[in-house]
């Protein structure tokens, strides 16, 4: 299983903070699988400025996934 997290505006737009889903080949395949959850999901997760982190390291959508990976989707950061 994958541990999938959403933060900030993405969390709000998807109305989802965290979910678990079956392991797939890579992040692109995960987005494809998540897109079945609602009409907004593909738009939100494919937006050009979305940042993807796997196990808390920033990656791109071709990143390969493994069982128990933690995958996070979030907008550009605005701390400090």
């Amino acid at each position, binding site marked *: 299983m994958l541990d999938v997290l959403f933060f900030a505006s993405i969390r709000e737009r998807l109305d989802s903070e965290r979910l678990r889903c079956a392991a797939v080949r890579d992040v692109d395949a995960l987005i494809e699988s998540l897109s079945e959850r609602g009409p907004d999901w593909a738009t939100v997760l494919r937006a050009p400025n979305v940042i993807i982190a796997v196990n808390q390291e920033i990656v791109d959508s071709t990143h390969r996934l493994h069982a128990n990976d933690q995958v996070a989707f979030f907008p550009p950061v*605005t*701390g400090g």
Partner: protein
Amino acid sequence: MEAAEVNIQPEDFDAGIEIRNLREASGTTGAVASFVGVVSDRNDGADIESLLLEHYPGMTEKSIVAIIAQAKQRWPLLAVKVIHRIGKLQRADQIVFVGVASRHRGAAFAACEYIMDFLKTQAPFWKKEKTSAGERWVDARSTDTEATARWK
């Protein structure tokens, strides 16, 4: 016990105590440069009433530790401290502290600004502003991205 280099906390901090700790952490340091970020009263033309700071627990600490490690590779640093607050903050509240001790003032200044610049563009924090017109997520600034580019 050595204090942690990075604290993510809802509580306020005392910059004076942090600067004193940095001075003492390394005997006689020569130079301590520091930065305190404060909640602004205005942003993008609206009055800010309060701010909600969300973060990605675990990754936040990890990303700041990595930024500090990069700074230590570039400059001879004796001690570093980063504190970032989370949760609800009011106008004029302190948000962030970055302090750097070095024997050399140029290194202390440069590393302090480097850490702030990368914290702004890499550490997973998000600000939601409450203004008179309602709540809104703060947009990332292109000037912040440009600020990191000059360190390449």
